[in-house]
C-alpha cells in the first residue's frame, strides 16, 4: 500500500474519511476498525523507519492507535487527518527515542557543534548513484535519534518544516540545519568505502 503522505492530502474534506472519523468519534467500533485498517500500515512503516527495532515499531503502532482512540475527539476536522495522524505518531516516536536517548544520541550531541564541510559534488553524486534503498534504510539505523526522526518526518511523511520544528522542539529556521546534519550523518553511514565518505561531520 502506498503510504498516505500529508503533503499529498492537503485539501480538507476531499480526501479525508470524515464520515468514518465522525462515526469513530461517536463510538462506532466498526468505523474505528476501518480507520485502523486504512492507516495502520502507513503508521507502522513510519514507526519502522523512525525506531530502532521492528518490535519497537509494532509496540509503538499499537500504542499510537490506542492513544488516537482517546484523542480522536480533539481532532480538528478542518485540517488534514493524515497530517494530524503523523503528528501524533511523530510525537509518540520522538518521545520513545528521547527515553532511550542516553544510549544513542549522546554520541551525536558531542559532535553536533562541529562545522559541516560541504561535500565534493561529484563524490556525492557517485555515492547517491551507487546506493540502494535497502542500503539507505540500513544506514538510517546507524543515525542518532534526532537525525533519523528528522529525515523520516521530512522524506517519509512529507511533514512541513513547521511540523518538524514543532515535533522536535526546535525553532523553525533550524530545521534545515537539522536535516542537513542528518544527511551528512547518513552519508557518513553510507560511506563504507572511505573514499565515499563525503563531507562528514566526524
Amino acid at each position, binding site marked *: 500500500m502506498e503510504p498516505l503522505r500529508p503533503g499529498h492530502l492537503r485539501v480538507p474534506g476531499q480526501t479525508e474519511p470524515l464520515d468514518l472519523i465522525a462515526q469513530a468519534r461517536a463510538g462506532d467500533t466498526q468505523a474505528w476498525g476501518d480507520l485502523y485498517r486504512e492507516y495502520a500500515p502507513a503508521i507502522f512503516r513510519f514507526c519502522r523507519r523512525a525506531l530502532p527495532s521492528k518490535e519497537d515499531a509494532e509496540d509503538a503502532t499499537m500504542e499510537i492507535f490506542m492513544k488516537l482512540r482517546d484523542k480522536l475527539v480533539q481532532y480538528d476536522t478542518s485540517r488534514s487527518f493524515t497530517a494530524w495522524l503523523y503528528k501524533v505518531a511523530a510525537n509518540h516516536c520522538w518521545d520513545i527515542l528521547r527515553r532511550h536517548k542516553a544510549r544513542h544520541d549522546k554520541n551525536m550531541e558531542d559532535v553536533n557543534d562541529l562545522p559541516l564541510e560541504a561535500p565534493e559534488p561529484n563524490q556525492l553524486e557517485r555515492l*547517491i548513484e551507487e546506493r540502494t534503498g535497502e542500503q539507505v534504510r540500513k544506514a538510517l539505523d546507524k543515525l542518532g535519534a534526532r537525525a533519523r526522526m528528522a529525515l523520516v518526518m521530512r522524506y517519509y511523511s512529507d511533514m512541513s518544516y513547521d511540523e518538524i520544528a514543532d515535533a522536535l522542539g526546535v525553532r523553525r529556521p533550524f530545521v534545515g540545519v537539522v536535516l542537513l546534519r542528518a544527511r551528512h550523518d547518513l552519508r557518513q553511514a553510507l560511506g563504507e568505502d572511505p573514499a565515499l565518505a563525503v563531507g562528514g561531520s566526524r
Partner: protein
Amino acid sequence: MNDSNTTNQHLDEITLLLYVERQLDRQIAQQVSLHTQTCDRCLTLLRALDRESRLLTRSMLEADEPLPSRIAEFHQKVKRSMHWIWGVVFGLALLGVYALYTGYIDPWVEQFEQAGFGGTNLLSLLLFQGAFWKGWQSMFTLVELVAMTSVAGFCVFLLRKYLKRGTALAVLFASMSMLLVIPRPLHAQDFHVDMKDDKHKSLEVKKDEVLHKDLYFAGSLLRIDGTVDGDVYAIAQEVDVTGTVTGDLIFLGRSTRISGHVEGNVRGFSNNISITGVVDKNVTIFNEDARIDSSGKIGHSLTAFNQILTIDGTVGRDVLAMFNEATIAGTIGGNLRAKGASLSIASSAQINGTAKFEGDKPADVASGAKLASPLQYSKLEHRSHAERGAGFYIWRIVWAAARILLGLVLISLMPIFARETMESAERYGASLGLGVLVFFGVAIASLIACITVVGLLVGVSTFFLWLIAVFSSYVVVGGVVGRWILGRTSEFWPLIGRMALGVLIVVLVVALPHIGGWIRFGVWIWGLGAISLAIYRRLQPVIAPNIPSMPGGPIGTPLPPNTTISPA
C-alpha cells in the same frame, strides 16, 4: 554553462538544500537560480542534493517488509476479546467488591460501631448513611454539602475527558459556590478567652465562661475550666479538661488530662492520658500510657492501643485493647477482648461480660476478681520464618492470585496507563525517588488532613487511594520483571502473562527470610513511584528538549514554502 573558477563565491550547502526543499523566499531563490546557471560546482551539488532527496523518499516509501500479523490482527483481537473480557472483569469486580465488603468493610463497620463510631460520626455519616441515601431534602447540613462537593469534584476530575469544557466549568463553579457557604472555622480569637501570651500558644476557657460553638485550637496548652457547648478539636502539648465539653473531644498531643466532664466521645493520640472525670460516651485512644483512675468513668466503650494500660475506674460497655502491659482493677460493664504481653486482673476488678486474652503468658487473675465467666486465654504466636506453616504459603498464593487479578482488571480498564506506568518504572531513579516522596509524604499529608473536619473526606480518600496504589505496586513491578524476562509486548494477554509471571516472582522474593521485608518495601516504593510518575506525566504537557543550534546559513527569516526550483 561556464566552468566555475570563482570558488570563493560558491553557495553554501544549506542554501542549496533549502532551495531544493523550496524553503527559500522568492528573491533569494532567484539569486540561487542565477548563480547555478553560471557555476558548475554549485549546479552539480544542487542536482546531487535533489537526487539525494529523491533517494531518501524512495528508500523510505519502499514496502520492504510485509505488515506484521500482530499489527494486522490487533484491532480484531481487541474487538473480539473485549466482549468477554468485560464480562470477566465485571464479574471479578463484583466478586472483589463483595469480598472487600464482607472481609473488610463490614467487620470494620461492626467494630467501629462497637467502639462507638455509630451513626453520629462524620465518616460513617459520609460513607454509609449520609447524602447518598437520605434524599435531597435532608442534604442541608454542612458536612453533607462538603461531602457531596468533594465527591462531585472528584467525579469531574475522573470524567473530565468525557465532559464538555462548559459543563466541567459549570460544575466547578457550582462546587466553589457551595464551598462559599461553609462558615469559617472558629479560632480562639473569636472567643472571650484569656490568652496567656501574645503568640496564642495557650488558651484557657475560664471557669464561669460558656462557649456555644465548636472550639479549634493548636498550641502548647489548652485548659478548659468552663464549658464548651460543642466539640473540641485540639493539637496541643497539653490538654486539660476540668470543666465540661458537651460534644466530642478530639486531640493530638503529648499529655491529656480529663478530670471534668465530656458528654460526647473522646478520641485521640497522645503520649499519655489520664481520665479521672467522666466521659459519657466512648473513648478511643492511642497512647504510650493510659490510665482510667478509680474516679474515672466511661459511659460506653473503650478502645485502647497502649504500651501501658491501667483501668481502675469504670467502663460501661466493652473494652477492646492491645497493649504491652495492662492492669484491670475497676469495672467493665461489657466484654473484654485483650491482646498483649501481660495482663493482671486485680481482686477489685469486675467484668460483667466475657473476657478473652491473647498474650505471651496467662493473665494473672487475683482470687477476689469478679468475672462473669472464666477468662479465655490463648497463647500469642510469634512465628519465625522457619516455623511458617502451610497456611502461610497458602495465603501467599491467595494474595498473589489477588494481585494478578487486580493487575488483570487494571490493565483491562486502563491499558495505556498501565503501559505508561510500566515504562515509568523503567526510569529507575525517578520512580524510586518519587516513590520515597509519595510513600511518606502522601501518608503523612492524608493523616494531617484527617485532623481537620473539612479535610476528613479528602484525607480518608487520599489515604485509601494511597493504600490501593501501594497494593498495586506489585502489579507494576511484576509487569516490569515480566518484561525483563519475556521481552516487551503491547498485546493484552502476553502483557497479562508477563505481569502474572513477574508478580509470582516478586511474591516469592519478598517471602525470603531476613531480606524479604526490605525487598517488599523496595517494591512498594518503586511501584508507587512509577504510578506517581505516570500520573505526573499525564498531567504535564510533552516538552521537547532544546536542541543546540548551529551557526551559519542564510536561514534567518521564515521562508515561504512554494518557491520554485529553476530547471537545472
